[in-house]
């Protein structure tokens, strides 16, 4: 017998979960949560009105900006702090201190600094991802084997050349994992930011649907969309882990 492919098993599991959900609603009523058909209908309604695409794009836009900024700042910063040990010892503890503060705690300050709008949301996503990214890069560069650094020094490299040609490529596998985890965090934070700081996006859809008439079918439809997009983002980055040419910046072509 041929083994059953994994994707088939997962698909069946999802279908079974939806069926159980539906059966439960039929037995117990839908006062606590709408049933799967109501949610599907709500998704259709959102799609037809154009809100689904518009809000998804609004959320993705904020995450793209906040997260890209965090990658561009966080990874070089972490590598820099990892290489220049004294700078790392000076700044590292501050980053470690800021790290456990929930990004949501920054909401009042974000609104104070950037007002209600995209700026606040982008800032919150930036804060949520830049700290884990820079700390991952810092740690990863400290784990680089000293033999590789010494060999590079032996060939006359120093400072930024070592960061670019040794620290970065050596740390890359850990960096990609860090990027994946941080993007997951960023995608969670955008929802919270949109509930408070802006008037569009999937997070806004959820609070707005409740406030404007207890439309819990739209609330769950929003949740389903968030889950689906999150899954696609994570799968995309998983693929990236398997691209060996990703270290291209560090290569010397022979």
């Amino acid at each position, binding site marked *: 017998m041929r083994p059953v492919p994994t994707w088939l098993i997962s698909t069946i599991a999802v279908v079974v979960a939806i069926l159980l959900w539906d059966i439960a609603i039929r037995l117990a009523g839908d006062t606590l949560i709408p049933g799967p058909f109501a949610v599907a209908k709500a998704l259709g309604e959102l799609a037809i009105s154009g809100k689904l695409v518009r809000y998804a794009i609004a959320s993705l836009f904020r995450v793209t900006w906040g997260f890209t900024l965090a990658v561009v700042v966080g990874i070089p910063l972490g590598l820099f702090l990892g290489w220049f040990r004294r700078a790392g010892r000076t700044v590292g503890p501050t980053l470690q201190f800021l790290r456990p503060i929930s990004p949501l705690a920054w909401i009042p300050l974000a609104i104070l600094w950037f007002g209600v709008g995209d700026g606040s949301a982008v800032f919150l996503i930036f804060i949520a991802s830049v700290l884990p990214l820079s700390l991952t890069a810092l740690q990863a560069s400290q784990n680089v084997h000293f033999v590789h650094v*010494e060999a590079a*020094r*032996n060939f*006359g490299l120093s400072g930024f050349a070592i960061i670019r040609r040794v620290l970065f*490529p050596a740390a890359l596998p850990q960096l990609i994992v860090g990027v994946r985890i941080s993007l997951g965090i960023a995608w969670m934070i955008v929802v919270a930011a949109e509930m408070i700081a802006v008037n569009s996006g999937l997070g806004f859809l959820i609070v707005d649907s409740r406030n404007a008439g207890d439309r819990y079918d739209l609330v769950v439809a929003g949740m389903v969309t968030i889950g689906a997009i999150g899954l696609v983002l994570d799968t995309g980055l998983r693929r990236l882990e398997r691209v060996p040419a990703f270290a291209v910046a560090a290569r*010397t072509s022979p």
Partner: protein
Amino acid sequence: MTKLVVRNLEMTFAGPPPVRVIEPTDLEVRDGELVCILGPSGCGKSTFLQIVAGFIKPSAGTVMIDGTPVTGPDRKRIFVFQERGVFPWLTVDENIAFGLADLPRAKRTEIVARYVDLVGLKGFERADPQELSGGMKQRVEVARALAVDPDMLFLDEPFGALDSMTRLTMRSELLRIWQAAKKTILFVTHDVEESVQLADRVVVMSARPAKIRKIVEIDIPRPRDLSAPRYLELRDGILEEIGLAHAI
């Protein structure tokens, strides 16, 4: 001509507690000479090599190469770190090209091809180090070192992690490369046989703190017959010097 002069070199690692690893040591190495530094594990011979290469500053004394004091590592003198020094994120040819970033592409390609050939890695240019055996990785490191055309090579137990058959092959490879490329080589090992097979001279070190017990001239013409009486005599002499019986 004298290549390397070591004068009163001493090393104590600042503790606590401070550890004395090298007693005052003098050594001279001629241009193009292959010198083995032989000593028991942990005696300080690796530290000695790292000091001469410029990676570590000695507590006292001087290291002069070509009449100039050594103040740091230099691309004219390459240190070969067993096979652990190969960059795992680069392919074989990219590893060999590592020190050639400043050269124009055509020149680089030419040099890489020459050393791929010299160390016998033809056909593996695009391989990742993970796909190679220990001996092949070792040859990648040697090729990477030779590609920048250094005057000196420092080899720190380069064949220590290899199986005994690969080790024998690698020794004759090294001799072939050394004779072809005419480099001065300092070779650290704890293997008496290896030192007598390879070296022009063997510097016999004591246990820690290291000091030179004896310098043995290996006056056997190459290729060396490993069952010749002179070979056995020199080998046994060294074994006796470090206090090891030659019967098991």
